[in-house]
């Protein structure tokens, strides 16, 4: 018996979108406050927070829409997110002086219970799991 069809924005996808939305709102609020209020303190970290916020927003909207084009956008955004959290996480360990203030991705997202590290992996898994159903 064939497995019931899964849609990227239904079932577990609803949960994934909400988690991405929470991170989008949190990262956007944080970066707005950082950039407006104290940009000179740690420009690299604060710009990275803004980049992370933008990626979370794109991923949230793309996962929520769930059509074929949106799936491609989500795949790209979440892949960039994974590269970002790995790259920034590694850089923040190798050269902590470059990150006097934490960004969302510093320490592989340790300030957020490592959810920023796990989230893109789950996101890409879910996109792969629902891959054959996006042609609507």
């Amino acid at each position: 018996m064939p497995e019931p069809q899964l849609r990227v924005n239904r079932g577990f996808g609803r949960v994934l979108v909400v988690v991405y939305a929470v991170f989008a709102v949190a990262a956007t609020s944080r970066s707005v406050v950082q950039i407006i209020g104290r940009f000179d303190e740690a420009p690299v970290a604060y710009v990275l927070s803004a980049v992370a916020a933008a990626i979370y927003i794109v991923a949230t909207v793309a996962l929520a829409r769930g059509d074929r084009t949106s799936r491609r956008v989500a795949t790209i955004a979440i892949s960039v997110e994974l590269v970002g959290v790995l790259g920034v996480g590694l850089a923040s360990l190798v050269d902590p002086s470059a990150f006097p203030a934490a960004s969302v991705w510093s320490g592989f997202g340790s300030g957020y219970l490592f959810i920023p590290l796990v989230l893109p992996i789950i996101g890409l898994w879910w996109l792969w799991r629902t891959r054959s159903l996006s042609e609507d």
Partner: protein
Amino acid sequence: MNGPLATIAIVASLVAALVAGVHLMVNRPPGRALWAVIAVVEAAVIVFVVWGFIQLPSAPAAGVGLELVLYLIGLAVVLPATSWWIRDEKSRGAAAVLVIALLVVPIMVVRVQQVWAGPGA
């Protein structure tokens, strides 16, 4: 920003998260009882948010007005937005979304209290 209104919002939200968690475990979509509980939580949150806006000018920490405003607005909309998002979801994903939203609420209330008090508090 500490006080009974924050405590009521936190406790109500955690109790509702527990109820939503039971729905998740038994694979039951949210029913009228759970929506009623969530409405009570939202009412408690709105009272806290309004009180927060009223208290805003007297925040002890300097330069935190924008951050507090963003947190208070986020608090007010998190439950309505997530409820709208799962309005036609029949799977256990609906209850899972509510559990997450109801756990985000107390985290945000505590965060408001932290920002309000400032980094040295």
